[in-house]
């Protein structure tokens, strides 16, 4: 949460430099809500790119959300449509990593009783009823919080959440709090924007650092390693081919393919 504020401030400063007003920043951050996307807009505008080319690049970069959305779907089998939408609207790179982590943890806790079903989703859904009550104590306290008190509440939430499985409700509240923190930070950054000048590369590296942290937090397995190798190779290949704007999507797909190939190979060796 605090990292959102730091990066958000940096993003705001940059956006202001590209001519966005604080209100525009607030609107963009609260709805479009994508750190990576917003970090792209400012330098492109500064470099004098045309509006259509900015739009096309941002849309291409946003396509990775398709993958996130697909990855969450097993956990939402028994969640109502409205709740699913409320959740899905505020998923972004960082919250995807954090919430996926918590969901995976919850399903691990459940697998003991569910006798290795392999369908982790069922675990989450089954835990939902009991979890509702927990969300009220854990997430409920945070729900009515004013943006000003958001940081404290949230850091509490994260510290004890490490051991507590998460429910869909907790995830929705977390998503929205993160979005508010981000939007307010970007707006604040845009307001002080003209007073500060930091190199764009330095500020966007804060974003990179977040992704590195989330990547390091992934389970250590051969499949993951194959994914990473595949993704790096995919990104490199896309860039060499001149398809830089879809490098993230192609890299991610290459990573999944490499991971699957590794797992298939490992399995046939065992058999």
């Amino acid at each position, binding site marked *: 949460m*605090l*990292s959102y504020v730091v990066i958000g401030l940096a993003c705001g400063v940059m956006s202001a430099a*590209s001519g966005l007003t604080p209100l*525009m920043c607030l609107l963009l951050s609260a709805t*479009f809500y*994508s750190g990576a*996307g917003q970090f792209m*807009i400012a330098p492109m505008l500064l470099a004098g790119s045309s*509006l259509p080319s*900015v*739009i096309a690049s*941002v*849309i291409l970069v*946003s*396509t*990775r*959300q*398709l*993958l996130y*959305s*697909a*990855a969450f*779907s*097993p956990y939402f089998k028994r969640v109502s*449509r409205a709740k*699913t939408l409320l*959740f899905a*609207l505020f998923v972004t*790179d*960082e919250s995807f*990593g954090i919430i996926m982590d918590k969901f995976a943890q919850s399903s691990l806790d459940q697998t003991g009783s569910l006798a290795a079903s392999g*369908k982790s989703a069922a675990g989450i859904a089954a835990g939902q009823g009991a979890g509702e009550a927990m969300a009220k104590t854990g997430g409920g306290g945070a729900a009515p919080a004013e943006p000003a008190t958001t940081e404290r509440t949230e850091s509490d939430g994260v510290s004890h959440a490490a051991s507590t499985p998460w429910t869909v409700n907790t995830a929705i509240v977390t998503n929205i709090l993160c979005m508010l923190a981000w939007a307010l930070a970007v707006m604040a950054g845009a307001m002080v924007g003209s007073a500060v000048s930091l190199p764009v590369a*330095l500020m*966007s*590296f804060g974003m*990179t*650092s977040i*992704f*590195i*942290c989330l*990547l*390091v937090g*992934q*389970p250590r397995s051969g499949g*993951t390693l194959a*994914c990473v190798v*595949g*993704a*790096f190779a*995919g990104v*490199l290949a896309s*860039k060499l081919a001149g398809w830089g704007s879809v*490098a*993230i999507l192609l*890299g*991610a797909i290459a*990573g*999944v393919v490499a*991971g699957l190939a590794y*797992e298939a190979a490992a399995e046939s060796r065992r058999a």
Partner: protein
Amino acid sequence: MSMGVNEFFILWLCILVPMIVFRCLPILALKGRELPERVSRAVGLIPAAAFAALVANDLVQPATLVADPRSALLPLVAAAIVAVVAAKTKSLIWCVVAGMASYGVLMYLL
């Protein structure tokens, strides 16, 4: 360059609508279905693959590497420092601090 209000709204709408579709369509379309084993396995690999691709996209710069090797290597060194901090602390905020600090120091040194 400064951006007009009209231009801003065009940009906003044009990137927001696809974003909403990307965020909501797969989860609604896939939920409530039993995914075949292979597909659910692929879905499980998405987080690692996505973060690796995001990191790679920021670190791998073939064009810069040829033109100016130093500035292409700088983020790699800073990233290695962040990776160590990430493994040790598992904290997003420390990673951001370590990342921006080491990037800044390296930028100053090189």
